[in-house]
């Protein structure tokens, strides 16, 4: 019963957002049903489009899963964009340096490089927060800017496609080694290995968060740092770990974006969104919609992935700017976060008191402080 309530409320909230979208489509002089049809067709119309939707969802899922770690440890990571870029740059550098290495070696190395690159970019704000009291919101915002310019610099200079130097000077790498490409899973579609990798990552993070001492420590620090410290847990180390892991998963998203892209190369348009498609922000949305739970983030990411592919089709067919989809994403966030309170009220009314995620077994540790609300991090309400 509680579980059903838990799912219905955010879905209802999403419905409100779509209602707004429908009103906007009417205001733009189009039939909202046509709009919905175009979106569904764009996201699921053909096997290839379903695959494209899954591929679009993958970076959201990886960033989102990383976000669940950070937010569970009560650190706000809005540096996803920068961490994606850092992971992409390091993994691309590896692929450029040793292109002829056999696939069985190169692909894991590239993935590892992405994790390391993103991890470092995430750990820096962690260290700054833990040991220099620099707020992570400030440092992640600033590091996004640094990462973008670093990418611009590297793609115009050291990493540029040699052909481009005397040609159009496009800031992009050469086509990367096929040995580093994420293999296509179903011939004729874009579905590549990155999709199952992201799903496995989500499951691993779930296990890590709820089944291991590390996960317990992270959540304990997030729940009540003073109590955690009293229990002998290093708050500093766990903050660095949380942001590092969160960044590593975003870095992996960077790998997927480069080595699963149509063009198999890293290209910049001078900003971050041209490369990331704002996955660093949309991933936060996906994580939230998945109630900051790694497993629920999987279907949530696919929903937002389909919204994005659907919006492309909406623009193609009805000339409705895909800016509408971005606005809708924002509304969904607002409605969903607001609905959390409703869910709590409803749960209380039902006199069950068990929040939505309690259905999934929690960490085995008996001392584990229970999450107090559906999204787990709103513990200030207690």
């Amino acid at each position: 019963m509680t579980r059903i309530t838990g799912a219905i409320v955010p879905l209802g909230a999403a419905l409100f957002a779509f209602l707004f979208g429908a009103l906007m489509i009417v205001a733009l002089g189009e039939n909202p049903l046509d709009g919905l049809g175009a979106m569904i067709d764009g996201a699921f119309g053909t096997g290839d489009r379903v695959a494209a939707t899954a591929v679009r969802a993958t970076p959201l899922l990886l960033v989102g899963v990383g976000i669940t770690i950070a937010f569970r440890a009560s650190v706000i990571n809005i540096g996803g964009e920068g961490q994606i870029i850092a992971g992409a740059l390091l993994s691309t550098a590896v692929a450029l340096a040793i292109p002829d290495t056999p696939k069985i070696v190169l692909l894991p190395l590239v993935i590892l490089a992405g994790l390391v690159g993103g991890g470092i970019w995430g750990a820096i704000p962690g260290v700054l927060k833990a040991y220099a009291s620099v707020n992570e919101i400030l440092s992640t915002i600033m590091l996004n800017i640094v990462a973008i310019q670093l990418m611009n610099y590297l793609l115009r200079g050291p990493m540029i496609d040699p052909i481009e130097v005397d040609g159009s000077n496009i800031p992009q790498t050469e086509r990367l080694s096929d040995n580093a490409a994420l293999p296509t899973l179903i011939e004729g579609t874009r579905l590549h290995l990155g999709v199952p990798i992201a799903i496995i990552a989500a499951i691993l993070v779930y296990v890590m968060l709820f089944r291991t001492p590390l996960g317990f420590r992270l959540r304990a620090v997030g729940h009540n740092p003073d109590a955690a410290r009293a229990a002998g847990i290093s708050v500093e180390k766990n903050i660095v770990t949380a942001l590092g892991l969160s960044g590593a998963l975003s870095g992996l998203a960077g790998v997927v974006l480069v080595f699963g892209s149509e063009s198999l190369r890293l290209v910049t348009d001078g900003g971050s969104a041209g490369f990331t498609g704002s996955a660093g922000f949309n991933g936060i949305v996906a994580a939230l919609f998945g109630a900051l739970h790694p497993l629920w983030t999987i279907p949530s990411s696919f929903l937002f992935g389909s919204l994005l592919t659907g919006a492309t089709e909406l623009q193609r067919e009805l000339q409705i700017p895909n800016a509408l989809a971005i606005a809708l994403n924002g509304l969904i966030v607002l409605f969903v976060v607001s609905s959390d309170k409703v869910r709590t009220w409803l749960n209380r009314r039902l006199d069950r008191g068990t929040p939505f995620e309690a259905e999934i077994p929690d960490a085995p540790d008996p001392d584990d402080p229970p999450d107090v609300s559906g999204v787990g991090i709103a513990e200030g309400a207690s």
Partner: protein
Amino acid sequence: MKSVRKSQLLKLLGTLFAFTLIAVACGSDDATGTATSDCGTNTGVEEGDSVTDLTVALVAPSAKDDVAFTQSMVDSLTRLGIEPAITDGTFVVEEAAAAIRAYAEDGVDIVIAHGTQYGGSLAEIAPDFPETSFLWGTATDTQGLPNVYAYAPEADQGGYVNGYIAAGISVDIGVVGPVDAGDASAYVNGFVKGAQANGASAPAVVYTGSFSDVALATETAQAHADNGVGVLTGTSQSAVGAVNIATANDLAWFGTQSNTEAWESDLTVASQVYHWDVVLSTMIEQIEDGTLGGEAMVLTLENGGLVMEFNGCYDLESSLRSDAEGVIEDIIAGDITTK
């Protein structure tokens, strides 16, 4: 339970209602057309007779009316009487790739991938649709694909002409560039060379690092103005901020890509305008004859793809004007190298 949900609903609806009001209030105001120059010299783009029955789709990174790169293509298609299906503003490369693929799947005959950065994706898409012809620019090669035409402007040519005239107006020249790449850097390099050929020392060139950061482009132009330049030029959609600074400081302005008179009629001296229709019409003829690609074409002053549009409202010294005409002829004749 019911009352809780109801009050919640009411709150949400209230929010929704407020937004809807704005939306409706704004929506009732019809979108305006293109801006026209006060002087009336900039008559806009005339729609030509349709040259083909083939269907055309355009995917472009900025807005279709950006007074820059994308608009130059839309205007060119209009001159050919072609009304393409458009997906604009797709600066996210993977989104553009999805749109390009979808048009090809829909059976569109000619898909224009109007962004250099789309090339990598096109190399993967084009082989999947051998019956479709793809046009890609700005690019100087077709990546060996038989169904891809590449197009590029020799932007340095018009840059050279602009620079040459600019140096005749003032030896202190400021350039606001976006990112040192593609036709932006070609234009800037040509501009610098042209200015130096006419006696200016070295125009101050600043790349802001962004195609879209208007604030930075504006402050960069202001910095140039403070340094005492007499002439400004700039490229990319962020240049609009720099044009405003030219206006505020009475500085001559040189445009590129599309005609920027619409922005500032009095101070635009000349604009290098891309007339893609010159190469497009050749491509379309060849496509109708069954050759779907395999050739790279460039816009030059010689083939009429680059047009120097002088602003009738700007009082340009006649000797300088005729010198400029001479430079254009020399470039066409190959007596001046602009690279």
